[in-house]
């Protein structure tokens, strides 16, 4: 299939009767909700006020972005939350208006947001709702590029990977002006499906809230590769539920920048036996930057023979660097192998001196140690599209010769 999307205004969201009724309920619910505060456990380290700065308020208006440049392989551009151009082959794209009622009903159920303010608001104010489906195995990743420039921008993506299908998506973000993007992507992986999911936020300077909700069917595998850098505020959330013998590997790097705050929240739930989770997040925090990672793995009574590991480590590069890290395991099953840990460290002076004593200037010696700190996560990055972006940000060691 080869799609060239015309501008899809809201994609028919809430125009059918059943969705409209649901939408009205959600709007009522939104009216009764307030944004989270630091009293909420999953927001305790957040510097959320940036999202509500007056210059970023209001529904997103059109914004004069440069015209989208075609990317390699399959791709979609979302400008101000709406799909404006796409090229796909293996992936099928359908706006909400083209879905049959059974599919819509299924997704309404899946999208039920509970009392989460940003999720409800995203559903009520969504700029567009698009379903991406993969039935087979796609060789190249689907690149999803978001651009936001004014006001509140709220894309909503539904992704369905059919049983046994295998593919990858890479989300990248670029901000062009005072704006808050409150976006959501919902990943539904069928039995044995495999998805590699890249999330790269380095060009985001404004406020960005991005929620990934993933449901993994039996034996499905999700491999997350995320690189987060910002000079503004960003919050990246994963809410993942694993089916029987499903596997989640979540690898992330926060590459802090001065005045930026990156806030990562992970909620992972093992509700069936035999699932495996392996989380590794590393944060690099320079002066005047803030990084927070809260991770919770919940093993329900049905989650026997679970294997779960979570490591959240931070390297503080200067005084005035701030990090908050909290890994948690909540276990209600008895036959499990779980481990978690977190560190907040600084560069090792002894190692630094050793390197300098061999003639390496301090700046370079520090970079070697920083690269070494990030290496265990970088080694897990396999998506060329993510690596290309990462390489443009980090001078990486080349060990190819060894």
């Amino acid at each position, binding site marked *: 299939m080869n799609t060239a999307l015309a501008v899809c205004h809201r994609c028919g969201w809430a125009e059918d009767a059943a969705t409209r009724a649901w939408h009205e309920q959600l709007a009522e619910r939104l009216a009764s909700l307030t944004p989270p505060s630091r009293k909420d456990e999953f927001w305790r380290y957040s510097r959320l006020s940036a999202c509500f700065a007056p210059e970023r308020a209001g529904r997103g208006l059109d914004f004069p972005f440069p015209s989208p440049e075609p990317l390699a392989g399959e791709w979609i551009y979302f400008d101000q939350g709406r799909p404006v151009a796409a090229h796909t082959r293996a992936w099928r794209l359908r706006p909400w208006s083209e879905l049959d009622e059974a599919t819509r009903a299924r997704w309404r159920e899946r999208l039920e947001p509970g009392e989460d303010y940003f999720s409800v608001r995203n559903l009520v104010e969504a700029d567009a709702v698009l379903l991406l489906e993969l039935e087979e195995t796609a060789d190249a990743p689907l690149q999803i590029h978001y651009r936001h420039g004014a006001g509140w921008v709220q894309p909503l993506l539904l992704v369905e990977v059919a049983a046994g299908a295998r593919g990858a998506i890479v989300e990248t973000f670029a901000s062009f002006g005072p704006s808050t993007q409150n976006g959501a992507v919902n990943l539904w992986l069928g039995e044995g499906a495999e998805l590699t999911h890249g999330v790269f936020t380095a060009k985001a300077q404004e406020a960005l809230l991005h929620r990934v909700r993933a449901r993994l069917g039996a034996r499905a595998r999700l491999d997350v590769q995320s690189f987060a850098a910002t000079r503004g505020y960003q919050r990246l959330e994963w809410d993942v539920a694993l089916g029987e013998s499903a596997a989640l590997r979540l690898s992330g790097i926060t590459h802090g920048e001065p005045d930026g705050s990156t806030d990562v929240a992970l909620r992972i739930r093992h509700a069936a036996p035999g699932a495996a989770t392996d989380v590794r997040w590393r944060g690099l925090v320079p002066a005047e930057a803030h990084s927070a990672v809260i991770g919770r793995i919940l093993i329900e009574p049905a989650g026997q023979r679970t294997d779960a590991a979570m490591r959240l480590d931070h390297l503080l590069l200067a005084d005035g660097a701030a990090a908050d890290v909290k890994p948690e395991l909540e276990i209600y099953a008895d036959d499990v192998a779980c481990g978690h840990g977190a560190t907040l460290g600084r560069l*090792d*002076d*002894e*190692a630094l*001196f*050793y*390197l*300098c*004593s*061999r*003639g*390496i*200037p*301090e700046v*370079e*010696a520090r970079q*070697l*140690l920083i*690269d*070494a*700190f990030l*290496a*265990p996560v970088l080694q897990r990055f396999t998506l060329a599209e993510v690596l290309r972006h990462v390489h443009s940000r980090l001078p990486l*060691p*080349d*060990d190819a*010769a*060894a």
Partner: protein
Amino acid sequence: MMLTIRNLTVAVEGRRILDGLDLDIAAGEVHALMGPNGAGKSTLANVLAGREGYEVLEGKALLDDQDLLTMEPEARAQAGLFLSFQHPVEIPGVSNLQFLRTALDCLRKARGEAPLDSAALLRAAREAAQVLGLPADFLKRGVNEGFSGGEKKRNEILQMLLLEPRFVILDEPDSGLDVDALKLVAAGVNRLRRPDRAFLIITHYPRILEYVRPDRVHVLHGGRIARSGAAELAHQIEAGGYAAVLEGSVA
């Protein structure tokens, strides 16, 4: 003189460890530095290399005519100084190859030379690793990561061979080494001996001095060089302990 130390007085945490130390080492020479535990041998080595945490109260140290004590550690290395550490640190995640390449590039750049090409470096590093009996996966592994005590010492020698410094301080290169390794280390030093290069070997044992004949042996005691002599001095120490050789010296 290649190295000239005058009246060097150094305190650590407010305590004087070196107290008016004088030492001269000429190009082409090998000197040994001995002395009881805690005498300040490593302190001297570290101060010369530029480690933080030492307070230089008085004195100076010149390498050729450059005032070492005012230079950054990397500048001292670029001036030709090399310290083989008594306790080399482990640096997980920085591979030995990457480390060697970076160090060599920096040193060559400082000397105005073009970077060594990767293939040549790889060849030299592999050969040196083999000669020194370092494990085959050595170059890929993190610097000193999981190395045994002896392997760490061999790695210091490997770096010395590849970086080709002009003034080398070896802080107990022989401790924790088996006989074969000791010979390898000594062979490494001998391979580098040249009229325009000098060595200061800190040791407790005369054994390494059998393989690397020193021109002078010094005993550090009371914060300064309390006794100096020819190679035989090391044997007197071995036979009679420090008390015997320090008798009558100012302490």
